[in-house]
């Protein structure tokens, strides 16, 4: 938990602004975005090298090597980002960054909010869920996304380790191949990429929708960290 400064407290009271997304949350979000874009592009090329390199193109003499290098370096950056975010979810972060936001189904209240959000998305209910952090359905979705991240990291490093048998990553991941062949590991790594791309489409759309309907400044909050609440006082003023 971070302490609220007097200045922040003043701003919250006067403007209805609340500092929800702290710097590590926003930073890892955007690092993840960049990593997923780079990893998907280079990864798709590695799986299906669709760019033809002319043998006369002297600067293209190491094209696949370059793609793989970028892929591996970005993978390390991605792991670092996930590590920071995991730390922030368990130890460093505020209540909106907590891991509890990903498992709303653990409490009866959370299950009620899940139902609310689901009904809203399915046009069964008009009022959108109004929360400051993730809505319950979004949090639950992110739990699956985090799971997919870990699948990608483990399968990715297991495949990466194959070129250095006996090395560090091999020691950590070599046992996996006793249970699944590396070709099927590749297939999983490939399919999860598509699932993450599908998620990204959904994520951006939902962000636009919730930004418009909840009117809480959601879209700008991932840049600034601040979200808006609509105080009850205002309701009275308007009447």
């Amino acid at each position, binding site marked *: 938990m971070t302490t609220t400064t007097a200045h922040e407290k003043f701003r919250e009271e006067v403007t209805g602004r609340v500092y929800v997304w702290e710097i590590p949350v926003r930073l890892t979000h955007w690092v993840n975005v960049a990593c997923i874009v780079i990893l998907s592009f280079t990864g798709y090329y590695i*799986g*299906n*090298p669709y*760019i*033809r*390199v002319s*043998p006369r193109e002297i600067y*293209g*003499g*190491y*094209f*696949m*090597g370059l793609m793989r290098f970028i892929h591996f370096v970005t993978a390390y950056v991605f792991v670092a980002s996930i590590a920071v975010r995991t730390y922030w979810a368990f130890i460093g972060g505020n*209540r909106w960054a907590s891991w509890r936001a990903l498992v709303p189904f653990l409490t009866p209240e959370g299950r009620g*909010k899940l139902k609310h959000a689901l009904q809203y*998305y399915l*046009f069964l209910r*008009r*009022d*959108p*869920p*109004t*929360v*400051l*952090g993730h809505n319950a359905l979004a949090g639950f979705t992110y739990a699956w996304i985090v799971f997919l991240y870990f699948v990608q990291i483990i399968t990715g490093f297991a495949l990466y380790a*194959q070129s250095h*048998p*006996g090395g560090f990553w091999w020691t950590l991941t*070599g*046992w996996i*191949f*006793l249970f699944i*062949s*590396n*070709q*099927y590991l*590749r*297939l999983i790594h*490939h*399919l999860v*990429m*598509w*699932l993450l*791309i*599908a998620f990204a*489409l*959904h994520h951006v*759309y*939902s962000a*636009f*929708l919730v930004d*418009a*309907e*909840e*009117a809480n400044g959601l879209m700008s909050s991932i840049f600034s960290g601040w979200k808006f*609440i*609509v*105080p009850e006082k205002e*309701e009275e003023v*308007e009447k």
Partner: protein
Amino acid sequence: MRPTKTDNLGTILSRKGVSRRDFLKFCAAMTAVLALPARYTDRVAAAVAEAKKPVLVWLEFQDCAGNTESLLRASSPSVAEIVLDILSLDYHETVMAAAGHQAEEALQMATAEPGTYLTVVEGSIPTKDGGIYCTVGGRTALDIAREVCGNALATITCGTCSAFGGIPAAAPNPTGAVGVQDAVPGITVINLPGCPMNVVNLTATVVHYLTFGELPATDQFNRPLFAYGSRIHDDCERRAHFDAGQFVEEWGDEGHRAGWCLYKMGCKGPATFHNCALVGWNDQTSWPIGAGHGCVGCSEPNFWDTMTPIYGRLPRVPGFGIEATADKIGLGIAAAVGGAFAVHGVASAIRAKAQPLPKTQAHVEED
């Protein structure tokens, strides 16, 4: 002259007309295959020359005898062939002269003393229906393997069938075929998979045993590291074309004629641990990728199920029909999600017009 039990290999080889020079060339080659420093050549030569004929028993179960073919293949009789021929004299179903009861007797004599002989197994062992799908002399393969491999000093499996079940174990595996290590758990096994195994690796394993008195270090599948310690892809002569992004796009195109990388033609070199690229086949004449065809991954467990389609990069997605690839399904999922949310967006816009939200909402829930 028939070798006796007391002759050592050096004596037998010189009697067979193998010169000292040829013998040392063989020992140097074995030292290289075992990835030992060159100074070990003398030690290998001394050990092999001094070796007293260890008894070797060669069993064949559900197989095509392809590993025996690999063993016997030679443009001219090599030292390796003579070494192995001498070693495996006691029992080899395909090449021994004895038949019927005489053959059974030879097996019993060779395996009379537990812990004194090496067993080589070729072919998988069926386990379904009491193992009746493969019997030799009225006994099931499972029964023979339990007795012969169970009492052996060590068992060397030749080929993917005896190592992992191989082609008989491919789905749906009607005979319940398994490799030796699964059929007879707990025994000492060295797996030399491959379809067939490379005779160089069998010879080197035996030479390692003769030289050091122990079996070579292995990986998690009990394959010796000297032969299965790195991927074909990482030792491939076409690797530079992979790194450069130069790929064969179709059979016989310009890239294929120029010897470019076969990655896009489904080569499984990146998935396969074997030393084919280094030791070659048929007296180092050539090897599959050198001949212009991709690797099929024959030395990996369950290769017939996991490495297919042979000419495709990734396995097909189970349960989606045989032509569905990961990319088609993935693109489908992404398009479906995009489409679903486009529809949701239009519906939301209509709802916003038809049923506007009140200016201010209910208070924020405390969370």
